[in-house]
């Protein structure tokens, strides 16, 4: 018999912190990570010795990055490890921290994500298996191909995808941690340099540097450390899957998202229509359309019309990418999935300021990564 996270004791997000996502600088990575971790400790109003384990989502820093950074908080001897799972590295680190607390191994665990851009090739290029496209199909072209198919099947237009970027850049303009903080019009997005198929530069996420940190605690930890229960957000479910062989020429990222989300929302005991806030993997504008439909938030082919009507705005039916998403907040890889949990926690606490979606009670975080992998969490206000 197997047991999902929700069947163990409750696990809560009790502290959140970020270092702004930004273009690569000369700043050493410990500066980024320590800023996010110290902010999360201050947010939880606890001290570093209260933390019992660390899961560090990072894909690009290289071997043994965690203690080299966190030793500057004062060595306490706790277990620490790097978690690499492509774009879902941070999401996977958070899942492991939540599972460790839920199963009772620890009362307080830290999930942190830190990365800086690197030119290291993907392991997939070293498997000894290569295709015939000769390196010409990079991620933006993978999604441009899927976008072209979507336009043909549903009569959608390039404007339908560009509107995702308009919404998310609008949200990012109000997020002081976002890499892109400038609102853009539909004309700005469409007239931006063409990249691949219907995608323009502003419909592709910036990959820079940054850090995000989330502290997870049990009821026992919360009581023992005197943490404010009103600011705790419960982890309702955690689901993680990998790709299988789907029907030929299917959208595997969307299919994987569908299966993983079904599992996560069933475990949380909710329906897609219960979601108030969603942070999803909008590395490219078209992905937001695909995944909202795969999640059951929109019917097949219906996401563009709902987007146009404002359904996915802050204050709409469900706020999608209120942080600005990967498109505007940015996608520094390791931090991204942890940063989604930070935004959802802020929203469910009612502390998101001008980005606040009113009465947000249930939020969903979703990341996919090359491979392909998918991680989905559902969080609920306490």
């Amino acid at each position, binding site marked *: 018999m197997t047991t999902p996270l929700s069947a163990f004791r409750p696990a809560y997000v009790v502290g959140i912190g970020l270092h702004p996502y930004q273009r690569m600088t000369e700043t050493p990575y410990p500066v980024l990570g320590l800023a996010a971790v110290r902010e999360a400790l201050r947010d939880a109003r606890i001290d570093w010795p209260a933390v019992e384990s660390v899961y560090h989502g990072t894909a690009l820093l290289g071997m043994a990055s965690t203690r080299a950074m966190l030793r500057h908080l004062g060595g306490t001897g706790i277990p620490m490890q790097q978690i690499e799972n492509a774009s879902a590295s941070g999401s996977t680190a958070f899942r492991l921290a939540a599972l460790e607390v839920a199963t009772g191994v620890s009362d307080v665990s830290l999930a942190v994500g830190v990365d800086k851009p690197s030119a290291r090739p993907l392991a997939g290029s070293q498997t000894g298996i290569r295709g015939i496209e000769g390196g010409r199909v990079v991620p933006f072209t993978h999604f441009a191909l899927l976008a072209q198919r979507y336009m043909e099947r549903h009569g959608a237009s390039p404007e339908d995808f560009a509107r995702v970027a308009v919404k998310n850049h609008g949200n990012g303009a109000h997020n002081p941690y976002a890499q892109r903080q400038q609102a853009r019009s539909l004309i700005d997005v469409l007239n931006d340099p063409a*990249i691949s*198929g219907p995608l323009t530069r502003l419909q592709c996420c910036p990959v820079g540097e940054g850090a995000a940190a989330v502290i997870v605690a049990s009821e026992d930890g919360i009581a023992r450390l005197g943490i404010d229960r009103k600011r705790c957000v419960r982890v309702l479910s955690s689901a993680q899957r990998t790709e299988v062989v789907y029907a030929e020429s299917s959208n595997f990222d969307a299919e994987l998202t569908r299966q993983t989300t079904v599992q996560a929302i069933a475990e949380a005991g909710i329906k897609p229509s219960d979601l108030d806030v969603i942070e999803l993997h909008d590395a490219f504008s078209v992905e937001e359309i695909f995944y909202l439909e795969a999640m059951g938030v929109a019917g097949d082919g219906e996401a563009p019309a709902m987007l146009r009507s404002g359904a996915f705005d802050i204050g709409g039916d469900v706020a999608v990418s209120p942080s600005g998403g990967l498109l505007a907040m940015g996608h520094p890889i390791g931090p991204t999935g942890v940063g989604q949990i930070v935004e959802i926690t802020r929203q469910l606490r009612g502390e998101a300021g001008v980005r606040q979606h009113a009465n947000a009670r249930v939020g969903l975080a979703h990341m996919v990564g090359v491979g392909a992998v998918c991680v989905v969490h559902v969080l609920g206000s306490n």
Partner: protein
Amino acid sequence: MRYELSHPDLYREARGDSVELLGLKCSKCGYVAFPRQRYGCEKCGATADSLLDVELTASGTLVSYAKVHMHQAKAIAAPFVIGEVTLDAGPTIRATMVEPTDDAMQIGARVAGRLFPVPALPDAPSDKLELRFSLLDQPDARS
């Protein structure tokens, strides 16, 4: 001069000017895949002795396309067009199209692969044959 294939592990010349992709078929589950590998079946896990060599004719139907305007790698000159092709033999592949623009591209169009001399670098002399797909002449609907 006689041109060499740039990827003899991936495709070979066949009758006329047609091309065959070097694929595999799993004798346990029937899954047909490209490219060829000996690690194990992606669908059922059968080991190398169940993976039979099959040749997949490089013809099929265009299921999507994208004109790529920018590319990070300096050796790859943009723009170019990528086609996503479901081969008549089953697998869906992605290939570089001969056509320099996507003006005539249409999902559902018939396409086929041919070998073309392609320089390794944009200004270098052609010395290898590479596989490129192109649109086949469509029957004229008015005739």
